Every structure is written in structure tokens, then in C-alpha cells.
């Protein structure tokens, strides 16, 4: 908690140094998010709300609980209340287009956090390069699998895919495919649908592992599925630490506290990290800047390059990952 406050304070301080933190008048900012179901969303929500509050702005929070129609109504309500700007975490790319248009057509600037609209025509979009991050993380475990196998062996990789209606899930899938494409003819790939749901992932992964029990590498499109993967692999004696006989090189994406813990323990080899604090800071800065400048339809894409935390760079980059910071604060000690 103390660490988090330090980070929030740092963000506020950084904002003030670029000229709008201390001089800006207090603004009414609507923060409409789709849910708070994963560590990533919880930490993002906290970073954005605390930073805005510490900068002296008032925040109207709206949780859509994964209902796109409700989120649209909530944004309309915010507009009707005369907010100065909106930060949006949409449920999906398609609904984001509608909501962004709703805001900009009413002359309210809007910033979309992390989950991009299906087109970039309006609003400020802060988004991680999911494809590149996934490619780096998946590439790390695919290389490990190749290094451990005979040079002519055909290998089997499993990818757990997210909700196919979510742009981020698609980008992560593409990133994994790009990583596999670097090793032509070396991998047979099994795709497993998760719909971002642990129970669905459990059932489908069990079926996939039963169908093809020999797995040389695995990539999950989100770190929150690591406990599910463990539940499938452990009873089959396939949940092994790196260096142990039968270890499956395993990578994820998000950079959450569970992933950090599992990398440290040796069960997971890599995770693609979205730089949550960079994205939160960029979103807050962008909306405040637009309000200050009186811009009603700022249009810009701010890319979070992200990185992959791996067993190879853990020592140097551990504290660059938001999940490791949360882990150090005792996030998993509930």
C-alpha cells in the first residue's frame, strides 16, 4: 500500500512538472470501466482514481459490470451531468466505437484505456502493443522448447486464447502466431478457447491435454489462467519447475502478481508485461491536457511498448512489472 501511494504520488508529481498538475483547475472526470475482475483491472482502477484524486480532480466512477448497454447509458449519464472529460475502459472494441462517438459528439474529450476501439478515428487511445508483447513472451518459451528437443523433432505448442470479441485477445493470438512463424514447420499448435473464463478454460484445456498429452510449450493469453493451467497439469504430473524433468515451458501475458510469484518459483518461464503505470499515467495526462486545452475531440494513439519478464531477466526487471510490485506489497496474502 505504501509502495502504491509512492507510485501514485510520483505520477501526480510527474504530472505537475509537465505543467498541468498544480495549475489546472479541478475538473470533473468520469471514469467508466467495464469491471474489476482481474488483478490488472483492479490495479489500473486504483492507479487512475488515486492519481486523479491526488491531482485535485473529482472522479465520477461507473462500473458497467461487463454490460455494454449499461456502459453506454452510464457514459450518457456522465455527459448529461456535464463532466469535463471521460476515461473509458470498454467491454470490447465494437462498443468502444459507439461510446467514444457518444462522448465526442457531445464535445466531451475521451481517453480509452488499454482496450482499444475497433477503429482509431476518435478519442485518445492508450494501448499496449499486445501482439509484440505476446510475440516476445511466447517466443521465449518456444525457443526453450526447441533448445530442449532434437533438431528435427516436431513439437506441440498449446495456446489458450481469450474472448474472440476482445481486440486484445486477438492481438495476443496474433503475437503468438508470429512467434510460431519464426520456426517454420517446427510446431503443431492446439488452440484452446477460454472466453476469459476459468471454468471454460479448465474444461477445454483438459480436453486438449487428453487429446495430445505431449506438450512442449504453452502460452496463455492472460496470466489469470495460471491456476487453471496448474489444475490441469498437476494431476498428470506435468506441473514441474524449470530444470525438473518434464517441465513445460510456460508463458502468459499481463504481468500480474500470480505470474510474478510463479516465475520466481520456477513454474512459469515468461510473461508479457503491460506497463500498467505508464498506461495509467498516459491516460490521466491525456485527459487533463485535453481539458486544459479545451480540446473536445483529441485524437491520438499512445502505445505502451511493454516488455517480457522472463527467468533470464528477472533479477534486473522484476520491479518494472506491476504484478511484482503488488506481490511485494502482499497482494496475494489474502
Amino acid at each position, binding site marked *: 500500500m505504501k509502495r502504491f501511494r509512492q507510485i501514485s504520488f510520483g505520477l501526480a508529481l510527474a504530472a505537475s512538472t509537465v505543467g498541468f498538475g498544480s495549475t489546472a483547475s479541478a475538473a470533473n472526470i468520469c471514469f467508466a470501466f467495464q469491471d474489476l475482475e*482481474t488483478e490488472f483491472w483492479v490495479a489500473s482502477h486504483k492507479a487512475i482514481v488515486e492519481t486523479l484524486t491526488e491531482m485535485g480532480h473529482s472522479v465520477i466512477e461507473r462500473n458497467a459490470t461487463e454490460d455494454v448497454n449499461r456502459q453506454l447509458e452510464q457514459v450518457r449519464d456522465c455527459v448529461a451531468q456535464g463532466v469535463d472529460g471521460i476515461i473509458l475502459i470498454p467491454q470490447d472494441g465494437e462498443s468502444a466505437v459507439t461510446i467514444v462517438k457518444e462522448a465526442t459528439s457531445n464535445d466531451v474529450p475521451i481517453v480509452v484505456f488499454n482496450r482499444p476501439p475497433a477503429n482509431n478515428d476518435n478519442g485518445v487511445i492508450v494501448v499496449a502493443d499486445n501482439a509484440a508483447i505476446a510475440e516476445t513472451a511466447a517466443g521465449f518459451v518456444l525457443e526453450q522448447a526447441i533448445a530442449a528437443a532434437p533438431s528435427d523433432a516436431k513439437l506441440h505448442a498449446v495456446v489458450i486464447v481469450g474472448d474472440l470479441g476482445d481486440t486484445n485477445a486477438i492481438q495476443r493470438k496474433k503475437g503468438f502466431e508470429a512467434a510460431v512463424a519464426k520456426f517454420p514447420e517446427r510446431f503443431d499448435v492446439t488452440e484452446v478457447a477460454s472466453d476469459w473464463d476459468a*471454468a471454460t478454460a479448465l*474444461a477445454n484445456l483438459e*480436453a486438449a491435454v487428453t487429446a495430445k498429452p505431449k506438450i512442449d510449450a504453452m502460452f496463455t493469453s492472460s496470466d*489469470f489462467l495460471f491456476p487453471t493451467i496448474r*489444475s490441469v497439469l498437476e494431476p498428470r504430473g506435468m506441473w514441474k519447475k524449470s530444470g525438473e524433468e518434464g517441465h513445460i515451458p510456460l508463458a502468459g501475458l499481463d504481468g500480474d502478481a500470480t505470474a510474478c510469484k510463479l516465475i520466481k518459483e520456477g513454474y512459469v518461464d515468461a510473461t508479457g508485461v503491460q506497463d500498467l503505470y505508464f498506461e495509467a499515467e498516459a491516460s490521466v495526462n491525456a485527459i487533463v491536457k485535453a481539458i486544459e486545452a479545451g480540446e473536445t475531440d483529441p485524437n491520438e494513439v499512445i502505445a505502451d511498448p511493454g516488455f517480457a519478464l522472463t527467468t533470464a531477466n528477472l533479477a534486473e526487471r522484476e520491479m518494472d512489472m506491476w504484478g511484482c510490485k503488488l506481490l511485494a506489497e502482499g497482494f496475494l496474502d489474502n
Partner: protein
Amino acid sequence: MKRIMKRLVGFTLSHSTAVFFVLILLWFGVQAPQFLQPESLANIIKQSSFIGIAALGMTVVLITGGIDLSVGSVMFLAPLIAGMAMRSFGLPVEAGFVVAMVVGAGLGGLNAFFIVVLRVVPFIVTLASLFVFRGFGTWLTSSTQFDFPERMRTFGLSNVLGIPTPILVFAVTAVAIHIMLRHTGAGRQIYAFGNDREAARKAGLAVELIEARAYIISSVCAAISGFVMISQIGRLDVGFGQGREFDVIAAAVLGGASLFGGVGTALGAVAGATLIQTAKLGLVFTGVNLYMQPIILGTVIFAAMVADGIRGRRLRDKLARTIRPLGSS
């Protein structure tokens, strides 16, 4: 030949769910023979247990002519409270299981109170409780995931006499609901209520008690279902169970339960849940394109529903003929 075809069509329609089940098994078995291996079949049943247990309870509610939209939220809230009790008081998993059932009964009782005592429509009551129960659980967890003690996973991944615990719980629940519906007065009263509430009341049945009992059974089943699934993962995410009410209703209806009441069986619910899971896992097993999977699954469920609808109409037609006086033209 025509007669044989007619009989074949008749047989297919009379046993539509079973026929679909066999066809799906064969279809995927031909494409991937290991799909028919015992491990794969056991996995299908194990994964069916999640929706299947809840579908058993839903079937009881559907027989009364009601509906329970809150099952997905009960799947989430009951295990959560049980997990908190396990951690706070150091309860063993078995005691946690009982706590989940008691919480489920309490949540079902709450639904029943509004439906039976205050006479609010079940759809509205359970739609509201869907949000209230989930909201309460989200508040309890502060939107963060809840990790169960390690012994929870030991329970979920355990076997009894070689049978995975989730399958065992599924079987015991199915047998209990089957016996209750088929071999007890309480079960017969549920059918009587579902067929004609007013006639049941005039016959002296305690209709309020019958209806309340159905919602409590449904919630207890949902609580068991959630607990059994969570015991396999060891972690409860806030989104757990969300939208599952539709899977549960689909499984119950696919198993022959009527949305208009009076019809449905425990075995049907088991068959419905297993059919859906067989199709789902078969698509994964044979590596069907991810975009095609929901389309094919939806088509299979739709076809099974249509066949079941035709079967129901034929049955009604046959029954209608039997009430005509013999010898009349």
C-alpha cells in the same frame, strides 16, 4: 421401407437427446478415435458436472413452471462465503461444502420468500437476486480474486475408488434428485403443481411450500456446482459463474424440461448437460477452428431443441387422440 423409415424417425424423435448424444460421440470418435477412450469420456462427465449439477436444480424449478436466473451468482457467492468460513475458522473442506449448501439454501429461501410470500414473478425476483448476490460477493472480495486453502484443491482433484470427486458429487446429486422427483410424495407434488397450480391447491397441496422448496433446491444445487468447480481450480475470480444461468437452462431444457412447467426429469438434465459438454469438448478435441466452435455448438443445441419440440408435439397429439370416445370417427 416407408414403414421402417417412419419408425426410425419416430424412434429418433422419441429419444432425441440420446440419439444426438450417440451421433455426436460417433462423429467426433471417427475423427479422433482417442475421443472415445475412457479418460476422455471420464473428462466429459467430470466437466459436465459443473453445469449438470446446477441443471438438476433448475429442472425442479422448471417443472414448477418457474425459472431461476440467479444460479450463476449463487455459484459464485455460496463457495465464496464457504471459503471465507474455511479460512477464518480453519474448517475442513467437508465442512466448507456443508456451509456452501447452507448458504445456497439461504439464498434460495430468499428467492422463495419474494416469490411465494410477496407473490413477485420468479423471473423478476431471480433477475434481481442475480445482481444482488453478485454485487454482495464482489463487495466481500473488493473485486480481487479469492484464494482457497490448498486443501480445497486436494479435495477437487481427488478420487474415491478411482472415481473423480466431481463425478461422484454429480452422480449423488443426480440420484438424489431422481429419487426425490420419482419416488417421493414431494416429487409428485412438484409435478402436480407444475401441471396445474390451481388444481394442486384445490387438491389440498401446500402449493406455497412446494414452490419454495423448488427454489431452495435450485440454489443448493447451484452452490454445490460452484463449490465443486472452484475446488478444482482453488481460486475464485469475481467473474466466476457469470452468464452460466443460460448454460444451465439450456442443459435442463435440452434434457426435456419444459419452460411451461410439468415436464422434466433428473436423468434428462444429466443427459442435457453431458450432451452440451460432449459437443464442446469434441470440438476442442478435433481442433475445430475457434471461430467455428460456437456456431457449430449453437447449431447442435438448436437442432436438438427442434427435435425435442417435434417430439413434444407428437406426444401431445397422441395424448389428445386418446381422450376421444372409442368408436367415434
